[in-house]
């Protein structure tokens, strides 16, 4: 159930993909993300030519996106963002695939999916988001009214 709290907080409920708790600024995209050939694993930036986040870094951000696409190097490239210290702080996504499941597991960041409201509609870039993956809870504080 989605709960709207008084101080412009929204709470979403979903399923744990990778456990843990993290909070930070949201980076939201409606475009699916490629790992190999879609990100620079040394800088943590999106590099795909026609992507709306091209040139933007997801380092330390709560990455909110539809899911993974493209090469099977997805997990290996997000794995390397962890080894290079530029991984996202948490991942929130809609479509489950083997690429995103394995990618989230090896990135070692909390990750959730199957939320009771579309996170792409509820969360905007710049919102403050707390992900409690162990309990499947996402708490959003809207930037605009904060």
């Amino acid at each position, binding site marked *: 159930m989605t709960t709207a709290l008084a101080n412009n907080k929204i709470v979403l409920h979903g*399923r744990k*993909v*990778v456990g843990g708790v993290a909070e930070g600024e949201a980076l939201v995209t409606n475009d*699916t993300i490629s790992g190999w*050939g*879609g990100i620079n*694993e*040394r800088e943590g930036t999106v*590099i*795909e*030519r*026609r992507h709306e986040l091209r040139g933007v870094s997801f380092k330390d951000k709560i990455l909110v996106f539809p*899911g*993974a*696409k*493209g*090469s*099977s*190097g*997805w*997990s*290996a490239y997000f*794995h*390397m963002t962890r*080894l*290079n210290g530029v991984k996202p702080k948490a991942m929130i996504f809609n*479509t*489950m*695939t*083997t*690429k995103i*499941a*394995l*990618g*989230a*597991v*090896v990135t070692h960041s909390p*990750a959730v999916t199957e939320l009771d409201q579309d996170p792409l509609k509820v969360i905007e870039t710049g919102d403050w988001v707390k992900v409690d993956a162990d309990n499947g809870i996402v708490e959003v504080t809207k930037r605009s009214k904060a």
Partner: protein
Amino acid sequence: MKLTDAEQAMYDGRDGPARQKAMDLLVRYGEALGAERLVQTNNVAGAFNASTPSVRELVKKGYDAVFSELNLDSQEIVEIPKMRANTCQLITGIDNDNWHIQGIPQDLVEQQKKAEKHFGALGINMFATCTPYQVGNVPVKGEHCAWMESSAVVYCNSVLGARTNTEGKESTGAAALTGRIPYWGYHIPENRRGTHLVEVDVEVDDIMDWGLLGYYVGEIVQEEIPVLTGKLLNPSLIKFKHFGAAAASSGGVEMYHIPGVTPEARDIEEAFSGRKMVEKIRYGAAERKLAYDRLNCADNRDVDFVMLGCPHNAIEQVSLIALMLEGKKLHANTQLWVHTPRALREVADRNGYVKMITDAGGVVMSDTCPAISRYAPKGTKVIATDSAKQAHYLPAILGLPVWFGTVKDCVNTALTGRWQGGLQ
């Protein structure tokens, strides 16, 4: 997740620390997916090489450290024993013979060669190609596999009727050691049915056109399963290879059906098998042009690098290129790399194709490609290719504009130094 006794034994460490780490990863991965169990596999295609600049530091700790971290997601270094499943290495970053032409530092080449010896002795067969199905790994219908390489995965599922998800470096490492992979996604028959009907209204025959169709359809269906009908002419290994690679680049297509042609769809009814059709898509002249325009991002017609063979060329493609080049010389400002699996390069050499290409000034490469290696000839400003997949990825990976067209357009470009393509 429910484990069998043998799996539980591995999970508990009774088969040694490496298999324990492998099972630990498979369980974490399976639970992330929501899988209920694992399935046995004896066919693994993965990436076990240690030749990229990013792993230089890790290699200093030894190959057990490389495999532990990159193939098992284990920060603890465990001793890696022989693989339990039949396993092969996919494409790598380095051509073991032409590395100097690629411009690869020699220390990385030595690193790759040593790693190949080490992992080869553990049972990882060094096919070194993105197309294992061209050089002897041809799974049978219904066989459970654990493959990486999106273009090979879509071929395995759709054309061969074998069953694999798009696995990654870590899950293939774990599968190779345990002979297990999560039973999820394309391993389950119900998930292999069609979702979208694509009606092809323009003739699709040339390799370029199969690539354009794949690129257009992939972007629309994303991870779903298109069922293609209409004017699909002369389907073949080469055309499926290009179609699937394109659809897995613009989207995440891992399976498609062509009723009457591919093994799990005798007709449209069987392709959907009762699954509700999400959308009907028409592919005509306008859609073809849209895909073509999206793949062509260059405007400077002076081309200094032509790349052919992604996915790696079949011998028929090498032969076609060689015959077009026979007795001619490449333009002074243009370089040509032709990529084919090492086993097929041997055939091309015996046939005289390699000589025809090299006499013209071209290079026949194996083991790698520019997108994987991130190397193009030094000073390259504009690229031309016959591959929708390379045309999709190279602008992002190398930061260079790309022309996309037919093999003939590309060979003529290599001979004249000017882009010769255009939509007919």
